[in-house]
């Protein structure tokens, strides 16, 4: 359950932002999660409920914006989106690729508060 540690860290950023902006209540939090970030959105939600309890973010909506994996082919220089799965085969030259340009995101994207 590393989602708990991730959410704890995220929550400290959220609360620092809320303080900085003089907010009393956080209503909505948007996360950007890459397809290859290796976290379970469901587990993140569960962790969020635990770590937000009794904080100004208690009861806030947690939204997740998914970021698809985008890969660069070293052989033919094509950039392609990965439809699914973890084997990155270049659609143009069939090479196996590893150069992930997008898809590992694990970011706090937006906070809505009053």
């Amino acid at each position, binding site marked *: *359950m*590393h989602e708990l*540690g*991730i*959410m704890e*860290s*995220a929550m*400290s*950023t959220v609360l620092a*932002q809320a303080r900085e*902006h*003089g*907010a*009393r*209540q956080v*209503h*909505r939090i948007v*996360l*950007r999660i890459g397809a*290859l*970030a*290796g*976290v379970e959105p469901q587990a993140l939600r569960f962790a969020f409920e635990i770590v937000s309890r009794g904080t100004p973010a208690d009861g806030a909506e947690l939204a997740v914006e998914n970021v698809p994996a985008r890969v660069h082919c070293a052989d033919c220089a094509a950039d392609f989106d990965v439809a699914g799965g*973890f*084997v990155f085969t270049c659609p143009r030259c069939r090479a*196996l*690729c*590893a*150069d*992930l340009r997008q898809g590992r995101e*694990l*970011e*706090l*994207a*937006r*906070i*809505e*508060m*009053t």
Partner: protein
Amino acid sequence: MCVECGCGTAVPFGIKVLSVLAPGLLRATSAPAAPAPEPPAKAVDLRIPLLAKNDRQAAQNRAEFARRRMLALNLVSSPGAGKTTLLGRTLDEFGLTTRCAVVVGDLETDNDARRLARSHAPVAQITTGTACHLDAEMVAKSAGALDLAGVRVLFIENVGNLVCPAEFDLGETLRVVLLSTTEGEEKPLKYPPIFKTAHIVLMTKVDVADALGFDRKLAAENVRRIAPQAKLIEVSARSGEGLADWYEVLRAALPPA
């Protein structure tokens, strides 16, 4: 602050009115007329890594390792894949000519550190309690407690876990993922995120592959499909097979002294 008084004057970020009205804010609004105006809601767009604190510490670790001209390796695997056994033998062979240090993480006990204790290599145990992975701060503290004078290679044995360590950068130079023959050939397909981040994949315990009916070729192909970026070495800490290649890779990765 305008949130307090509801004046809605310039604030250094986007403003968006939400339908939700926080209780207690009405008091402060300057217009007492009903219906009460909603307080301005703030929406801040950001791009802050959720693990910002860990990432910062990892960057500091990386800078410190570089300053010491030290190669730092983060060894990750399922529980029992053979990290400690491999490190013990590596200290006894490679470690005789190249000074090494180890920090080893486990939920409980200092058994692994005691197994690794050698007069020629400083070792520190991290007990994480409940955390299923090491983080950059634990590594900074434990490495800081060691005498790193002359140390060229720092091995960081992560908590046995193929999932959680993936997102936690420790500041390592190289990430080493171990896949043991007792786990079956499919591991890379089942736990792709960690294999995607590997610089080196070690297929361990190859001495018992035949007895287990483990197909080394198939496993190697699965590693290649998921992690074509990784250097794959097939090793046995028992028979010694492949260890010369492992030491050679370590030697080649050493930063110039």
